[in-house]
């Protein structure tokens, strides 16, 4: 649905003396109907990337396709028409303070030439969709952050886009409001088949609603894939972010430290007792975590193995198809 091909954005400053590659050769495919997250630290290039998708920012080279339309090849009226088919929401909501919630939602409809009557009906529909029935007459200043973002979502969806871009949409909200907004987005994604591309610096957002994720670092994608799969790889960036690490823990002489990753059903196996029973090994648990990621149970266990049979125990893990890492 969204195809980003070999995208570069080079910023120059001080009259061309300095150069920075905010996007350094990015290629991504966002499939129709999925929630795709781009995770990265401040300055990684996330905002630049998402702004290139609707050409608020012109890439230096490379192309962006939305549906079967090459957005980066458009300009003028055709680009503006294409933007009307791509919804966007923002970290600071960006609602017009001079308009009520309903008038804000009607804004894109005015641009599309809806009649007053049709606008009113559609706005009512949208207010209900985002759970703001009866609040249409409130001005943004009279709404909470979460309610403002709901207005933002309704406004973005007014023209029935099939793609929604979210630029740090929950970064200005408290954890509970963040969850409810993410739930709303997830719900819209499921019910309407809305394709969502979101950027965030919060692992929690990726964990809660993303099907797939790309990790952005200094303008490059350093990792991408299905969230739960990445979480089940002990050496992935996602897993390292998600699970507590063995902060400088040193195994005793004669023992090895092993990180074992679980996913889905394997999370329920009685692994520790299995190892101890089958092999002549001592299993010392250092730490362990189980979490729900992308709707799947994923876990990580740090154990210290010692005894005669360590190598057979490790082979057994291999046979059981448990991803693990020996340190």
């Amino acid at each position, binding site marked *: 649905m969204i195809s980003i091909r070999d995208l570069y954005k080079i910023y120059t400053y001080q009259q061309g003396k300095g150069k920075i590659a905010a996007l350094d050769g990015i290629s991504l495919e966002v499939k129709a109907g999925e929630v795709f997250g781009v995770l990265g630290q401040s300055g990684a290039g996330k905002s630049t990337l998402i702004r290139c998708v*609707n050409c*608020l920012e012109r890439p230096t080279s490379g192309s962006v396709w939305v549906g079967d339309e090459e957005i980066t090849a458009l300009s003028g*009226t055709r680009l*503006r*028409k*294409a*933007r*009307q088919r*791509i919804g*966007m929401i*923002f970290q*600071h909501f*960006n*609602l*017009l*303070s*001079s*308009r009520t919630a309903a008038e804000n939602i009607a*804004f*894109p409809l*005015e*641009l599309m030439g809806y009649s007053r009557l049709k606008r009113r009906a559609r706005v009512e529909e949208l207010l209900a969709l985002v759970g703001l029935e009866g609040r249409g007459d409130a*001005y*943004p*200043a009279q709404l909470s952050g979460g309610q403002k973002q709901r207005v933002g979502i309704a*406004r973005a969806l007014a023209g029935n886009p099939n793609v929604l*871009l979210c630029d740090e949409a929950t970064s200005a909200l408290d954890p509970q409001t963040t969850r409810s907004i993410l739930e709303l987005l997830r719900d819209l994604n499921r019910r309407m088949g809305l394709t969502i591309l979101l950027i965030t610096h919060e692992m929690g957002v990726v964990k809660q609603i993303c099907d797939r994720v790309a990790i952005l670092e200094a303008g490059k994608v350093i990792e991408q894939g299905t969230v739960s799969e990445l979480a089940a790889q002990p050496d992935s960036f996602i897993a390292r972010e998600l699970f507590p690490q063995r902060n400088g823990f040193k195994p005793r002489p004669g023992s090895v430290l092993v990180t074992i990753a679980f996913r889905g059903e394997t999370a329920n196996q009685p692994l520790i007792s299995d190892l101890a029973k089958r092999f002549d090994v001592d299993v010392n648990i250092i730490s362990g975590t189980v979490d729900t990621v992308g709707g799947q149970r994923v876990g990580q266990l740090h154990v210290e193995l010692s005894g005669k049979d360590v190598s057979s125990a490790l082979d057994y893990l291999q046979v059981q198809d448990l991803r693990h890492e020996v340190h």
Partner: protein
Amino acid sequence: MLDPVLMESLWQATVETFYMVGISALLAVLFGLPLGLLLVITAPNHILPNSAIQKVLGSIVNVGRSIPFIILLVAIIPFTRLVVGTTIGSTAALVPLTIAAIPFFARVAETALLEVDRGLIEAAQSMGCNHWQIVLKVLVPEALPSLILGITIMVISLLSYSAMAGVVGGGGLGDLAIRYGYQRFDTTVMVVTVVLLIILVQIAQYVGDRLAIRLRKR
């Protein structure tokens, strides 16, 4: 205390003041607002960056702002004759007042329009707005409360500028105060006209403030 003749001239002076200030304020908004808009949108990183236009307009506005009004009043007499066909009276005073007020209001409008959050413009662009729509549906409505306050400041400045219009026989309250009070040592008339001017300024400020508060829904 005041004879009917004086009452009559006070009334006439008030009407002249309203005429001069009202028309010149209206014209200043009509020309100054587009000028202020151009100054804002041609700035770097705005919707129509164009440093050449921005610099030229900026310089013109600065020149206009730096000429002392009393000099402008006299210097443009030939131009005034060209435009309104006369060089004395309230109508003649309108020309220099308007010429002084346009660059003034352009700067006031620029400041007000610059306050509009960049994020709103970006949101409008993401919804497919063209430049006109951004100006008419985002910039002006969002800056309206500040613009109203700017108009108030301008009207009050024009009230005091119009007092100098006596130089070209423009009439108005200020002119009356000078002719009777200063030149004929009639303190009563001077006090009355000054009090009238004070009341007008108070009313203008009050109305402007109320309007801005009503419009500001932040």
